């Protein structure tokens, strides 16, 4: 049996639609997940033991269990618990956001720690209210310091999002599997799908290096 990539030409449109779903899902979950991650990371430095406790339980649970099981749980159990039917996209967004939130909160926690006590001292000496301390001093520095790791987290999420195909969401992976089943050409189809993922992820990994070099050097933080 010889390899024949020409079968894929018929499915360009389907693959493009699948890719669009993957990209859309990833982008939404990056925005929501990073916001959640920052708040959770901040909560883990809270003076209140209860707040810290809740935040750690959440993080440890989502870090310590397979994403696939989290997805199944949200797709099939959450509708039963809430009593409402969730769309595929909504379920996917909830599941991956919760996962991304847990992962990035660890990234933010480390970067928040590195912002350090001296910066806090300066904030207090200048009489900055807590809200200003967070939004104008801590958040921008934490994001800058966390930028390289956050980008890596985002690339991971982009690839992990392929798991939503397992619960029937029509993302790039799902479309690829369908085509592969219909054409009985799994090697060609999955190779091309892998190349599409790579074509997007690879420039992003390069970007990580660039960000590390440029921004961080300029600010020396």
């Amino acid at each position, binding site marked *: 049996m010889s390899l024949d990539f020409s079968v894929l030409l018929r499915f360009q449109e389907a693959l493009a639609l699948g890719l669009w779903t993957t990209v859309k899902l990833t982008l939404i979950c990056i925005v929501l997940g990073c916001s959640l991650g920052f708040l959770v990371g901040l909560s883990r430095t809270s003076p209140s033991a209860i707040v810290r406790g809740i935040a750690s339980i959440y993080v440890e649970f989502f870090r310590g269990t397979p994403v696939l099981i989290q997805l199944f749980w949200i797709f099939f159990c959450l509708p039963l618990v809430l009593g409402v039917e969730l769309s595929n996209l909504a379920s996917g967004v909830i599941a991956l956001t919760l996962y991304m939130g847990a992962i990035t909160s660890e990234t933010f926690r480390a970067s928040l720690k590195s912002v350090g006590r*001296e*910066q806090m*001292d*300066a904030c*207090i*000496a*200048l*009489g*900055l*209210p807590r809200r*200003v301390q967070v939004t*104008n*001093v801590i958040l*921008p*520095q934490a994001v*800058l310091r966390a930028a390289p790791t956050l980008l890596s987290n985002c690339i991971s999420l982009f690839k992990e999002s392929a798991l939503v195909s397992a619960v029937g969401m029509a993302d790039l992976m799902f479309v690829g599997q369908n085509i592969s089943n219909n054409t009985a050409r799994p090697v060609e189809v999955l190779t091309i799908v892998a190349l599409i993922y790579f074509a997007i992820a690879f420039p992003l990994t390069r970007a990580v290096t660039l960000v590390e070099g440029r921004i961080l050097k*300029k*600010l*020396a*933080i």
Partner: protein
Amino acid sequence: MTSASAPLVSIRSLHKSYGPHIQVLKGLDIEMKPGERVVVIGPSGGGKSTLLRVMMGLEKIDSGSITFGGKPYISSANADAKTAINTDVRRSIGMVFQHYTLFPHLSVIQNLVLAPCKVRGEKKASATQRAQALLERFGLGGKANAFPAQLSGGQKQRVAIARALMLDPKLMLFDEVTSALDPELVAEVEQVILQLAEQNLPMMIVTHDMWFAKNIASRVIFCAGGVVVEDGPPEQVLGSPREERTRDFIDRVFHIKQ
């Protein structure tokens, strides 16, 4: 006390410890009059920096009280009680730290206008104008848009002083502000502080630089073991100290200098 000028700062029986075993301040009493420039000297671990940090409201205290301009500022009844800090009073005190503590993600001018705009609601244009004038005065007119990482240590420290002055403090605290600087950069920072002294801005300075202490102080306090050992005019404390411990310290410092 019935002196004509009421004290600006009045520190009473200040106790502060880190954990159960390390007592840093063991009953400090200091009274500071308006217009005074107090230099605090003494061996490392003697509580000088802790004193300044407490006065800035950065540290919890065990017991004692501080009043500022006659108003209650900081107090605590005992080590388990919460340290009460009057944040309105705290806003009239400015502090400069050993390691500059500029905000690295903001330009010089943004560092200066952040607090006036966010704390006092000053218009950005007016704050920027005041900031620019202050930078010119400190020889940093061309650095408004530079980032802290692009400045020398001496420039950073002058920016840090300008940033504190933007809030028109009634008292400035300087905590070893030249200790992290290369020797050739020390003078430019000390010049700026001497400039402020000419305007009679009250200040409390912790320094290891005895030349600077002699030139700027209107009064010198020798602090060791968490208490005030000697307190008087610079000629006395630095020149002919009355206390044995002060004399030992001064001798050793000047011996190292030779």
